[in-house]
């Protein structure tokens, strides 16, 4: 059931912060020479071991629903409840807009003496840091951001590893050698996904090309559908997406072609079309961090970027249409990535204008991957700037 109480409470937040005055300095009498004693409060930038159940809050950018970005985070939240039972008290607030709204919600959690808050969207970065400053004894965890503090950690999934794997499937399943990609905004995170997907495709099918359409919106099912139909019209027979609705999968199902899901298993929107999906699994990370909070040894200033190896990235079960040898190949590639012998962005790596970006034997650095602003060989067109 939905946590109406938390939603209502968040809606009714009134920010009447009791002003914590310093208190007047004690009046010094002329006869008294003794210095006034000053109490020193030790400020430790980490939550102490909680006495009762640990209170953990989650802030979501969209409704939980039953598929998609927020849904995956919520599965992680449920994993915490399952693992720790009544040692934790977990609540969440959904559809919290990035910016001032999120600051209010995070602040509310802090004022109610929560031990830890997971802020699950990029735009919560500055609000999280702002509240964290005021509550040094609380643990803050921010997904996808790049700013940390003494009591703020950041975490991100190596999603490109999953994209590479589903790229292998797409490269094998295409007959027209045109593969379509419906994407939201041309930011490094999305570009990295397109590039990793394309690398997977070209590994098994050097003739295939990827065509990209930007919808310039995180959420517009109608436009995602139009983009998918357009790509199908231009000959694409496998589609992938970086957007938040299943419209692309529906379009593929209607047209009788294949599609690959994103974030969650979207097969129910296209049972015939849906080959597999690249998915995030936040549960291991969330369980680990809450465990630290419970033990009193949680620390801040850490950045986590995990992938297949840690189980933060997964792929969905294969459609029966995917041949057994392709499935075996994908499993092997997955094992190689986990072993560190395979990297989606290992050289030689050319951009789509033919310039060599990574030399033979070298591997792209994390920093370069985080700032991706060009297409790899195999993607059609120019990246909008």
């Amino acid at each position, binding site marked *: 059931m*939905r946590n109406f109480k938390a939603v209502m409470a968040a809606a009714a937040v009134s920010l009447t912060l009791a002003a914590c005055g310093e208190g007047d300095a004690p009046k010094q009498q002329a006869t008294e020479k003794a210095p006034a004693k000053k109490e020193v409060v030790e400020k430790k930038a980490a939550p102490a071991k909680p006495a009762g159940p640990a209170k953990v809050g989650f802030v979501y950018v*969209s*409704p939980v*629903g*039953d*598929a998609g970005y927020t*849904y995956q985070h919520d599965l992680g939240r449920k994993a915490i409840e399952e693992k720790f039972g009544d040692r934790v008290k977990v609540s969440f607030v959904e*559809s919290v807009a990035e910016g001032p709204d999120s600051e209010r919600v995070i602040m509310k959690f802090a004022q109610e003496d929560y031990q830890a808050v997971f802020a699950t969207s990029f735009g919560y970065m500055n609000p999280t840091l702002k509240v964290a400053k005021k509550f040094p004894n609380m643990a803050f965890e921010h997904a996808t951001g790049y700013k940390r503090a003494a009591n703020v950690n950041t975490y991100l999934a190596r999603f490109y590893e999953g994209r590479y794997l589903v790229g292998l499937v797409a490269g094998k399943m295409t007959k027209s050698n*045109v593969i*379509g990609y419906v994407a939201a905004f041309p930011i490094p995170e999305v570009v990295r996904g397109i590039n990793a997907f394309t690398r997977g495709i070209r590994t098994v099918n050097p003739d295939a090309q990827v*065509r*990209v*359409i*930007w919808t*310039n*919106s995180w*959420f*517009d*099912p*109608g*436009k*995602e*559908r*139009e*983009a998918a*139909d*357009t*790509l*199908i*019209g*231009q*000959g694409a027979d496998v589609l992938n997406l970086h957007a938040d*609705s*299943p*419209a692309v999968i*529906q379009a593929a199902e*209607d047209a009788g072609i294949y599609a690959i899901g994103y974030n969650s298993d979207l097969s*129910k*929107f296209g049972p015939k079309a849906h080959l597999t999906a690249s998915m995030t699994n936040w549960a291991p990370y969330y369980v680990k961090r809450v465990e630290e909070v419970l033990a009193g040894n949680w620390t801040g200033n850490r950045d986590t970027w995990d992938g297949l190896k840690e189980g933060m990235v997964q792929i969905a079960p294969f459609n029966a249409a995917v041949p057994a040898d392709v499935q075996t190949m994908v499993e092997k590639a997955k094992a190689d990535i986990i072993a560190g012998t395979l990297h989606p962005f290992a050289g030689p790596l050319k951009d789509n204008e033919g310039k060599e970006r990574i030399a033979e034997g070298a591997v792209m650095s994390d920093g370069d991957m985080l700032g991706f602003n060009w297409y790899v060989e195999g993607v*059609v*067109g*120019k990246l*909008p700037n």
Partner: protein
Amino acid sequence: MIGFELETLVAILLGVARGATPLVFAAIGELITEKAGVLNLGVEGMMLVGAVAGFIAVVATGSTGFGFVAAMLAGAALSSLFALLVLFLHTNQVASGLALTIFGIGLSAFFGLDYVGTPIKGLSGLYIPGLTDIPVIGPLLFGHDIMVYLSFVLVAGCIWFLNKSRWGLILRAVGESHHAAHAIGYPVIAIRFAAILFGGAMCGLAGAYISLIYTPMWAENMTAGRGWIALALVVFATWKPGRALIGAYLFGGVTILQLNVQSMGLDVSAHLMNMLPYLATILVLVLISRDETKIRLNAPACLGKPFQANG
């Protein structure tokens, strides 16, 4: 580069029709409301409420037709709230319309909570053996879904209603000069009420087209601003139904065109192309606002003005 084959062109044109149809329904609904002298900026909210009501009805009954009926009722019900405010309590129409949109967004999100991620069967295009099979012409004439044809029927009906029917002329009179219409004995408030309800029903229908046919699913805020485009279309069309239809296809066509340009890898800014219809709207506004007489010929003279019978 992939050449434009005929099949691709047909697919594109079918897509344009799908994109334009909800805009046609919403724009025509708003056009009738404005012709009666009422400005309802709640289009987006009414569309969303229609979208969610239609979706819930289809999940419950399995009948798309029933879904559309439910959507019209829901849209009309929400617009009756607006009618109550502006006709009887004389609230500011702009503010009330904006509030209606915000209310509709929240209301639809609330009722749709448990339906997010529920798949339903969409309505596919018509198939008339023999006719739809004719190459190119067949699918273009006989391959759309039923609502596309109904939108054309609606436009034709509105043109006839506004120009040839007695009540249509009375409705226009109410929009042009409510005091004159009142003086010769026409029920101004009742006519406006009816126009608002019709507008609400059509916006509900437009929303249901999106949640039942275009992308058969429910998702919060899924109309994604199309209600505002419909409002712009009414101005673009200078309050003429035929032009609203052309405008909707122009808007839809430009969108599809820019998507095609993108996937071909041509270096044209998508943002610039997306702006074109709005630039055209502004241009029309500038043109029709150049002098008093032109404005009077186009916008209903009493648009947005509350009516109180004097004496």
